[in-house]
């Protein structure tokens, strides 16, 4: 496999947005006819490098060489003409077209105005062959039977297959698939694996970005691992898989020093109970029969790979999504029918993933927004100009929150958009705390942060529980999350596969495997060889 010719070479690519460095001297190559996986934790820069290669981003430095010719600076559609084609994370199917039209649009190439106006558009040249080509591509991915159906009727799995067929129909030589398996169930993933193997067999080189490592091990011959915008490891799949650096990057190598103190004084009163929750996003079943609970003063972590359904679960609790089945109870009260904007008033606060700060507002103003629901309850005029006791109460809470994150006091009048990632995360958490919640939910607080910053933030959390706050935390950085929490749940493909005391979970060796999903690799290896 090693002697395959290098088809595409990524050389020292640097990319930054504003002051934030996203890619740092990324180099790897793609060899003709192989299947290459691009993996790495959330925010590692996988989609960014894909966007650079396919012309959607322009890098600050570096080259992308296709058989020696530099692609950097070419427009996206020009790069498609060179045979380098991508799909999108969300499949991006065109729902107003039917399945076949989706693919024909990619294969027609020529769009002559005059010929079209006199009804000869499909008669000559490339468009005359585009229908046939589209059918071949649909056949290849196994969608031949649904070609005439409206694209809006496809299942999530079929949408990914259609996106692949569409990309192929452009005459792709290298196909970049961005998280093709995200949100799909086992059967759908199996179909996708087979389709990708067929695509490779037809002579197309496949590069895919993926979080599901089971999926990766079924397909990839070589793997490139990105972490914090740098190449952490690359090489034969076998070697990369056993590389301790890679395992660390996935489970998180942040050591949290402050273990939980003795919790003898903790009450056992249930704060939040979720029973048999199911939820779906359109055609994707995101949660299936999930039950969990959070006691008062407890830190509970929810770990699992990207797309496992963690954010959806938080969304159900915060009221953003409506579960299709199951019940939610908070402090003895059912949450059914309570709108999302009323839930902070009940004591549920969410610090969302990606921070979602109001960038043009100052830190102080961002925190005031966190107090909005309290102010609103004390009358509409308070929103125009907070005053009197309500104003004092707000300042009091702000004072409390700033005592908790002293760094924010210095940054009080700074625009939130100019903060560093770690400070931004502190504002995000502090803003959630402004509503004096009983339950604080944190969605990926370590997202995009360096290890030492992550540690600083995570280590501050146990102090909150002493003030009577319970915490439900979602983390990819599984090790750190378990170290700082009392109990943990492991979510895989929308279902809980393990739960228990964090210490116990940390010591169970199979959790790493369940989480990483390497465990099926050996059997599928055989499948692939024999296939």
């Amino acid at each position, binding site marked *: 496999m090693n002697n395959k010719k290098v088809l595409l070479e990524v050389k020292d690519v640097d990319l930054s947005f504003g002051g934030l460095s996203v890619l740092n001297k990324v180099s790897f190559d793609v060899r003709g006819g192989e299947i290459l996986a691009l993996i790495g934790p959330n925010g590692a820069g996988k989609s960014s490098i894909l966007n650079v290669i*396919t*012309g*959607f981003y322009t890098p600050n430095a570096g080259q992308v060489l296709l058989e020696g010719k530099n692609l950097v600076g070419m*427009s*996206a*559609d020009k790069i*498609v*003409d060179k045979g380098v*084609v*991508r*799909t*999108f994370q969300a499949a*991006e199917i*065109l*729902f*107003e*077209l039917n399945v076949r*039209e989706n693919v*024909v*649009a*990619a294969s*027609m*190439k*020529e*769009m*002559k*105005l005059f*010929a*079209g*106006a*006199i*009804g000869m*558009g*499909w008669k000559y040249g490339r*468009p005359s062959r*585009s229908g046939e080509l589209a059918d071949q591509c649909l056949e290849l991915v196994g969608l031949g039977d649904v070609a005439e159906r409206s694209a809006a009727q496809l299942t999530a799995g079929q949408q990914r297959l259609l996106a692949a067929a*569409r*990309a192929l*129909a*452009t005459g792709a030589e290298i196909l970049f698939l961005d998280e093709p398996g995200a949100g799909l169930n086992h059967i759908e993933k199996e179909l996708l694996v087979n389709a990708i193997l067929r695509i490779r067999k037809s002579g197309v080189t496949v590069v895919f970005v993926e979080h599901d490592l089971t999926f990766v091990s079924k397909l990839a011959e070589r793997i490139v691992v990105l972490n914090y915008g740098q190449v952490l490891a690359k090489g034969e799949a076998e070697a990369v898989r056993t590389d301790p650096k890679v395992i660390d990057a996935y489970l998180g190598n942040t050591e949290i020093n402050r273990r939980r103190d003795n919790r003898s004084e903790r009450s056992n009163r249930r704060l939040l109970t979720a029973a048999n929750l199911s939820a779906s996003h359109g055609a994707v079943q995101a949660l299936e029969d999930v039950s969990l609970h959070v006691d008062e003063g407890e830190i509970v972590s929810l770990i699992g790979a990207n797309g496992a359904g963690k954010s959806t679960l938080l969304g159900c609790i915060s009221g953003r999504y409506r579960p299709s089945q199951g019940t939610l109870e908070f402090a003895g009260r059912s949450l059914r029918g309570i709108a999302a904007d009323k839930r902070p008033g009940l004591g549920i606060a969410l610090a969302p993933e990606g921070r979602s700060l109001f960038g043009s507002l100052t830190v102080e103003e961002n925190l005031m927004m966190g107090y909005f629901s309290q102010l609103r309850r004390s009358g509409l005029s308070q929103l125009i100009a907070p005053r009197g006791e309500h104003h004092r109460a707000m300042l009091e809470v702000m004072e409390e929150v700033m005592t908790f994150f002293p760094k924010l006091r210095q940054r009080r009048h700074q625009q939130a958009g100019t903060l560093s990632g770690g400070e931004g995360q502190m504002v995000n958490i502090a803003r959630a705390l402004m509503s004096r919640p009983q339950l604080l939910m944190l969605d990926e607080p370590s997202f995009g942060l360096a290890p030492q910053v992550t540690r600083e933030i995570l280590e501050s959390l146990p102090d909150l529980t002493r003030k009577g706050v319970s915490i439900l935390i979602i983390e990819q950085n599984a090790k750190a999350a378990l170290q700082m929490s009392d109990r943990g749940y492991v979510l895989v493909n929308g279902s809980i596969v393990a739960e228990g005391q964090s210490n116990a979970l940390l010591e169970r060796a199979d959790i790493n495997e369940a989480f990483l999903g390497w465990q099926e690799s050996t059997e599928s290896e055989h499948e692939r060889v024999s296939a």
Partner: protein
Amino acid sequence: MNRAIAPVAVVLGLVGIYLSGNDYLINLGVVCAIYTIPAIGLGLLFGRCRQISLGHAAFVAIGAYVAAITSNEYGIDPWFSVLLATLTGGLCAWAVGKLMFRLSGHHLAMATLALGMIVHTVLVEWRSVTGGPDGTALINPLVLGSVDLMSDRAFFLLGWGVACLLLLASDNLIRSPFGLGLRVVGESESVASSIGIKPNALKVAAMTISGGLAGLSGALYAYWLGYISPDPFNVAFSLKLLLIVALGGYSGSWRLLVGVFFVVVISEVLKAFGRWDTIIFGLLLIAAMLYPQGWLGGMFDQFRQSRQATAGDKRGELN
């Protein structure tokens, strides 16, 4: 077969109106033809490519004034002035598109809205050229051989002849690779780029065509009326054109005529309301946006689907 039903029905209806000899109906018919031509272009731009132009009246006005001025001042042959008006409308739209499509978002809507106001102001203020608010009369009539085309009857034939040809071409275009490209760009520009379609090139092309057709319609309007003033080319006119496209199910094809007839008839009714018609057309446009298939167009689709469904059932029974 099915493709022929709409055009044949339209042509039969038009022949019926013509033969009825009713002057009022024929006059309305000419107005309809004059609305149909820019609506076809806007159907491609707004209906297919999903780019909103809020100042399409400006391109119609440009066409009308270019035709009037070149024929009055420079003695250019009226037919040639119509061609010049079409080209100028297209050129202006091309320039606006070229500038605006560098940006994403609703910039085109804002830019065309501003363009509409600027053009209107120029027409009113630049008295030496446009005749100011009083407008200008066209000295030379449009003549075919020795037939003066200025009567409603003659113009009915000319206007609808042009409109039907353009509808035919637009219908073809929508079904062609070009039309498929427009739909792809209209739904997702990033997908278009990812499959090798240049979104900006197609958007500029659609913009140019629609500007050209608006210019053509303006020129025909000027010759039909024999007199133009800035007043008709106002925001209400631009709104009416958008409403036509929305009511016609964003199709840019024969279905547009549903919107054209509706809007022209409503305009007649609303004449009593004077200036308030802008508000009423705005409200109608909002209502039309709520039913993206178009009112009548949507019903037609439902009817066809239910028929197909029953036909499918029957086939099932036979097996």
